């Protein structure tokens, strides 16, 4: 069965949030930008009217005001944007747990399995748009397709507040005429190379010879060919996995695939060491450990579990992660990537309760060792002193 993937893009995100909170500026050109009193103030986002007056993201505020003398510039309020982004994601998560954010204002959703409950892809896209408009007072445009690349092109195709479906049938009319630079991961340099090969549109790219593309651009050439033909197989990662500021985590893709758990132990120790440093800096303990892994067919999986008591202990957290992986994966396929993270934090001072089942004396020793290691590393350089087990993992980093 074909997948159904949405890409949602909040339109002029920062500017829309500010416009909502400033109804008095309705009908006026509005931009969000750095402090105009400071010379380096630049435009971060603008509304439609400012755009029509030629205001561009990234230009200096004084330049923008020259083009558009009535331009109103408000200071960015990132707390507000994070709040809106969070609320939008909460809406997405009511329709699927496969939500992969791309910055604050974009996300992919895989709703293949949600259609029986909520209707087909277009219906879900329209419902989500309406909810964002009604509940949050901003707008989104949504692309619907069977792969992430075309879904993203769809959300860009018609704005604001519109749904565009890209199917095998209308791909020729919608996708093929678009400039090749609209494609994800085609930067200026790649575009120049492609232009040199006579490839200007996505249609040109999809009809190009795959082997010649690989020769000219390496792996990227082959990838772009699959992009242009709607054959990109990459999956929408489960939201759960995603690293936001409520967790500390790292994921690695070692040069060689991992075939058994003993290769993963040292990796988890290395990653956890750094994570615990970050937790100590924030003065928190974690109550949950999560792992994520991707097999050689590039499927992501994630698992999480609670700890007996809040912890900042490298060994305890790393071993928990290893146990979790051992229980949930049988290495039927080798693993391409693995990651570990900690979450559900409590403030260290707030946690004084002793556990019945943990050896407090050993933990205290571990803690002293870890703090000492950290001090040494801070003074003499990162990785100056490491756990013996972490040395094994060097080959995999």
């Amino acid at each position, binding site marked *: 069965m074909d997948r159904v993937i949405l890409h949602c893009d909040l339109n002029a995100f920062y500017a829309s949030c500010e416009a*909502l*909170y*400033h*109804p*008095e500026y309705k009908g006026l050109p509005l931009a969000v930008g750095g402090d105009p009193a400071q010379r380096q103030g630049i435009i971060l986002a603008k509304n439609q009217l400012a755009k029509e007056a030629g205001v561009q993201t990234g230009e200096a505020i004084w330049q923008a005001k020259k083009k558009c003398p009535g331009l109103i510039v408000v200071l960015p309020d990132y707390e507000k944007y994070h*709040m*809106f982004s969070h*609320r939008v994601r909460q809406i997405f998560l009511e329709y699927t747990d496969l939500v992969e954010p791309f910055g604050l204002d974009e996300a992919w959703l895989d709703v293949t399995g949600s259609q029986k409950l909520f209707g087909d892809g277009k219906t879900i896209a329209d419902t989500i748009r309406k909810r964002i*408009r*009604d*509940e*949050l*007072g*901003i707008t989104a445009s949504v692309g619907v397709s069977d792969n992430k690349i075309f879904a993203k092109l769809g959300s860009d195709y018609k704005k604001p507040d519109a749904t565009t479906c890209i199917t095998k049938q209308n791909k020729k009319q919608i996708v093929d005429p678009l400039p090749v630079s609209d494609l994800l991961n085609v930067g200026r340099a790649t575009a120049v190379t492609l232009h040199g090969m006579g490839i200007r549109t996505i249609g040109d790219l999809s009809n190009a010879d795959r082997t010649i593309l690989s020769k000219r651009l390496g792996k990227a050439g082959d990838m772009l060919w699959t992009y242009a033909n709607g054959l990109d197989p990459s999956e929408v990662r489960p939201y759960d996995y995603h690293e936001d500021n409520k967790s500390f985590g790292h994921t690695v893709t070692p040069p060689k695939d991992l075939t058994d758990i003993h290769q993963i132990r040292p990796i988890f120790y290395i990653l956890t060491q750094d994570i615990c440093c970050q937790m100590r800096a924030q003065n928190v303990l974690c109550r949950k450990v999560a792992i994520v892994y991707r097999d050689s067919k590039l499927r992501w999986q994630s698992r999480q579990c609670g700890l007996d008591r809040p912890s900042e202990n490298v060994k305890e957290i790393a071993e928990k992660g290893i146990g979790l992986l051992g229980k949930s994966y049988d290495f039927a396929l080798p693993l391409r990537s693995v990651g570990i993270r900690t979450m559900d934090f409590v403030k260290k001072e707030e946690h004084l309760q002793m556990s019945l089942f943990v050896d407090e004396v050993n933990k205290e020793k571990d803690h002293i060792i870890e703090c000492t290691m950290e001090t040494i590393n801070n003074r003499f350089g990162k990785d100056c002193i490491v756990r013996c087990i972490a040395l094994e993992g060097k080959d995999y980093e």
Partner: protein
Amino acid sequence: MSKNYVGVLALYEPNGDIRPLEIIWKDGYRYPIDTVKQVCSAASLKSGGIGTRFTCVIRGQLRYLYLEEKQQRWFVERL
């Protein structure tokens, strides 16, 4: 134009729901809320902001009362 923030007397139900009972205007005048017809998340395009919107009947007339998302302040939609 600024938001019309008001005082509100509300009941916190045992299940966590919030039921506004009375609006207290700036001059101290009290407007009892007859019924709440609908509760939903909504944006206020007129006053500017998002939150929980209570559709209230006050003296036989419909008014939107918002509990603002972040600051937990109440405002009445200007009509």
